[in-house]
């Protein structure tokens, strides 16, 4: 029977099947509910925020008297009302500024009024006097001794034990790698490449802007509705900041209209909650305008990176020395961990015996940075992967061969000293090279065009505290269907569908018979750390499978007792309990709630079935602060490769991507079509950052806070030919072998395009976005065109 169990255990239906999304129907009919769609009733108040016009200034005085006197205004609050700090890894933020503003848009005061218009008027009536300070606008300068200090109290902030701020400077985290002997290795190198790369700030721009609605009742209970990737983290951080119990804060999170990291942790939600504490019983809605979203929602940090890498005459990488200056902006409570992740992954997906890396998170007077899809990896890989190409050319080895020679493989000792788990990276490289017909050069489509191909590879680990946990329940219903409870959030990535597939597979019922309970509500849903890091399929998936197995065990034990059989001889197939021994069969219907009668009317057995499951990694270790070395830095790495073929118009500099190919090792694709959809979407987002996107900051002031001036890829920009390839080298502790792939597709896109442009015209364009103008000027500079 163990055999049968093992066989079933292998890959039950519908794991690996491309079932349609569980939320598709409600989303195509307009029935899906997002936070702004909930009807909050006639008591609803509207909040607006008074924000700093200066990138760096001291607050001398705030006069709210006129605003308070405006009819229709119900509350006006300032930083003095909420003295506590807030933050995920480093508590460096007040809810409202108290003594100092640190970026254009920093919240200074908040208003609640009976209409948005009145709230807006009230904000205009608040008078703030500032003493303007010198802003810090460059992270490399900002890390040095001559920069103004943005956080004088850095040394007093509460900080996670794996983050290393340097009080007295603007460095809020310094992560070091010291592996092997880099200095000694250079002399053995036959080729060395040294480059500086820069990446501008970009933004997530979910099509749904941030929104939070908060209510505080007479007992002090806080209810927060929001577009949230992190209901439980918000509950925790807001409770701590307000000095409340976590159980007195309820976060209700309906569908999210795109997150990409910007709705993780706590940002504008705390403003809504703080204001709501002053208007007890009434919900207060704060909805960011698109302009406000551009100014004040999280942005992806800019990066100035220095790479030095060398290889021997056969092309084997011997050493790397990398320095990263991250433009962390005004607050880095979340992004300190991005700079850590970039540090512990700083070799890229390569086997390099000698590595020295310094990753500095630097405060500047720029917008607040936070997690964005890829968590430091797209920025870091952009320069690193172009450098690798340069080194391959320098030593005279084909870039694909160079990567196959050096890429990280199963069992390698990686940059942090951890042993690499089974990985299909080399298979990914081979597959994209084949699909893009690497080595074959097609003629350009016109005489004024130059054609090129480029490849880039990547790795990324879930970046999180070592013990980020997941939990789940599976509750059976009268009709034999199951309802799955999770605390992770559906952002569009398809997690509810994948959880339903896993529950169906582990339980033995059809996919159509599974529902996922929502909205996620911290009062009712099981705990989940956050919906970030591409960790749900793996971590929450494990919890769901465990919960479904627990429910299954309860059912089989009940039926076995009733049939006087051994549970090991029973199975659940398609919603029916069957016995391989007696060949009896009974549908789940009713028995999962009412139990089963004992023979001869002697009472009942069983009862309502609720399975529970959890998952938490227990094996991640700390790293030495001086060397970044330790037995296990991360849970695992998802790896992959992308290749593009493109044409550059040498008369205009315009680049057209003709096709893109991407392969990722997802361990096991629970829903292959959704994996492909995720890869395509990520590729186009990456392409968008390669060609169009940049937050233009002039003296700390954002110059392009609209979709007209901050352009993202449209239907006309997406290459028609995008091919997604799935590689499956199982993750030992993943559900059915799965690991995540949500973020990874956008990591290698910029350098793949950069390398293809170089292949086409022999020029490195510099920092993205690779606009036609920039490409054109680069060609002029290189003397390719006059």
């Amino acid at each position, binding site marked *: 029977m163990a055999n049968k169990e093992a066989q079933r255990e292998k890959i039950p239906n519908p794991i690996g099947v491309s079932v349609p*999304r569980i939320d598709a129907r409600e989303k*195509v009919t*307009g029935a899906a*509910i997002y936070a702004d769609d909930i009807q909050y009733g006639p008591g609803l108040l509207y909040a607006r925020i008074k924000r700093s016009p200066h990138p760096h200034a001291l607050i001398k005085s705030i006069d709210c008297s006129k605003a308070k006197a405006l009819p229709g205004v119900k509350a006006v609050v300032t930083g003095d009302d909420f003295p506590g700090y807030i933050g995920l890894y480093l508590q460096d933020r007040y809810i409202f500024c108290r003594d100092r503003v640190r970026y254009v848009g920093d919240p200074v005061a908040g208003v609640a009024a009976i209409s948005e218009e009145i709230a807006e008027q009230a904000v205009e009536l608040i008078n703030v006097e500032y003493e303007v300070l010198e802003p810090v606008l460059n992270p490399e300068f900002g890390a040095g001794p001559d920069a103004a200090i943005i956080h004088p109290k850095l040394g007093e902030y509460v900080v996670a034990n794996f983050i290393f701020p340097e009080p007295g400077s603007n460095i809020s985290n310094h992560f070091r790698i010291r592996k092997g002997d880099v200095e000694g290795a250079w002399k053995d190198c036959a080729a060395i490449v040294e480059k500086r790369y820069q990446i501008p700030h970009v933004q997530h721009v979910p*099509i749904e802007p941030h929104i939070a609605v908060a209510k505080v009742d007479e007992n002090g209970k806080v209810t927060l509705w929001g577009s949230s990737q992190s209901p439980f983290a918000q509950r925790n951080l807001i409770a701590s900041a307000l000095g409340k119990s976590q159980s007195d804060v309820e976060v209700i999170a309906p569908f999210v209209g795109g997150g990409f990291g910007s709705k993780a942790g706590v940002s504008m939600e705390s403003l809504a909650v703080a204001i709501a504490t002053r208007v007890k019983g009434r919900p207060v809605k704060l909805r960011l305008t698109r302009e406000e979203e551009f100014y004040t929602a999280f942005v992806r940090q800019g990066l100035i990176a220095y790479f030095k890498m060398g290889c021997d005459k056969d092309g084997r990488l011997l050493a790397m020395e990398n320095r990263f200056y991250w433009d962390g902006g005004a607050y880095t409570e979340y992004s300190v961990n991005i700079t850590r992740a970039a540090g512990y992954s700083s070799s890229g997906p390569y086997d390099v015996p000698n590595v020295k890396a310094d990753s500095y998170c630097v405060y500047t007077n720029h917008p607040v940075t936070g997690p964005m899809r890829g968590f430091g990896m797209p920025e870091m890989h952009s320069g690193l992967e172009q450098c690798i190409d340069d080194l391959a050319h320098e030593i005279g080895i084909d870039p694909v061969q160079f990567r196959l020679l050096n890429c990280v493989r199963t069992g390698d000792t990686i940059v942090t000293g951890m042993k690499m788990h089974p990985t299909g990276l080399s298979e990914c490289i081979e597959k994209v090279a084949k699909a893009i017909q690497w080595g074959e050069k097609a003629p350009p489509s016109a005489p004024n065009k130059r054609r090129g191909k480029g490849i880039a590879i990547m790795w990324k680990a879930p970046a999180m505290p070592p013990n980020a946990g997941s939990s789940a329940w599976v509750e059976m219903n009268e009709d034999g269907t199951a309802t799955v409870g999770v605390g992770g959030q559906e952002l569009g990535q398809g997690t509810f569908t994948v959880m339903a597939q896993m529950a169906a597979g582990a339980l033995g019922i059809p996919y159509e018979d599974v529902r996922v309970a929502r909205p996620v509500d911290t009062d009712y849903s099981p705990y989940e750390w956050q919906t970030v890091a591409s960790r749900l399929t793996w971590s929450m998936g494990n919890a769901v499978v465990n919960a479904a197995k627990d429910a299954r065990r309860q059912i089989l034990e009940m039926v076995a007792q009733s049939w006087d059989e051994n549970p090991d001889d029973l199975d659940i197939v398609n919603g029916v309990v069957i016995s391989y021994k007696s060949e009896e069969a009974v549908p789940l219907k009713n028995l999962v709630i009412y139990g089963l009668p004992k023979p001869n009317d002697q009472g009942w057995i069983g009862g309502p079935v609720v399975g529970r499951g959890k998952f938490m990694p227990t094996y991640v270790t700390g790293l030495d602060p001086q060397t970044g070395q330790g037995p296990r830095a991360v849970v695992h790495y998802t790896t992959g490769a992308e290749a593009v073929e493109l044409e550059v118009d040498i008369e205009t500099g315009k680049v057209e991507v003709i096709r893109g190919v991407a392969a990722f090792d997802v361990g096991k694709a629970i829903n292959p079509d959704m994996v492909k*959809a995720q890869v395509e979407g990520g590729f186009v987002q990456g392409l968008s950052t390669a060609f169009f996107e940049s937050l233009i900051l002039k003296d700390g002031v954002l110059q392009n806070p*609209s979709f007209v001036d901050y352009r993202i890829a449209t*239907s*006309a920009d*997406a290459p028609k030919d995008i091919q997604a390839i799935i590689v499956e080298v199982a993750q030992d502790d993943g559900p059915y072998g799965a690991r995540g792939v949500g973020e990874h597709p956008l990591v290698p896109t910029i350098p793949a395009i950069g390398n293809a442009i170089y292949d086409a015209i022999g020029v490195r364009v510099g920092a993205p976005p690779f606009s036609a103008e920039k490409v054109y000027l680069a060609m002029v500079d290189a003397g390719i065109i006059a």
Partner: protein
Amino acid sequence: MSNHKINVTVNGEVEVVEVPANMTLLRMLREKLALTGTKNGCSAGECGACTVILNGEPVNSCMVLAVECDGASVMTIEGLSKDGQLHALQQAVIDQGAVQCGFCTPGVLMSAYALLQRNAKPTDEEIREALVGNLCRCTGYNRIVEAVKQAADQPETVAA
């Protein structure tokens, strides 16, 4: 702000609505009629999330004043399926996996619907052109284009 009483046909139903002079069609649909399927992504005519059909033409409802809609006929995402029967475009979006977060989807469907009304067999380029004002941050667009093609291949689409 003065209020105006307007008559507007929404998804075939005649509605009498009182609206302030500065209220947009988007806000009227969402706040007065509780038709929240139409989304607000920018309130500035730049993202297409609020697209509805006004007198047969796709418009950004955030850029139209409700008072201008007196006597007009409006179709929103809620009017696309009939009696629980999905429209071919909706089914095609599901079949092609062309929805992720879903926030752009109602607007995308309205633009695509308008396209098929005026052009039953659009080319790839024509579809991309028709959807250029509908920003989607999730899908990368190709599946949406495929969905429109799938729906266009079904004869009943245009009649619907």
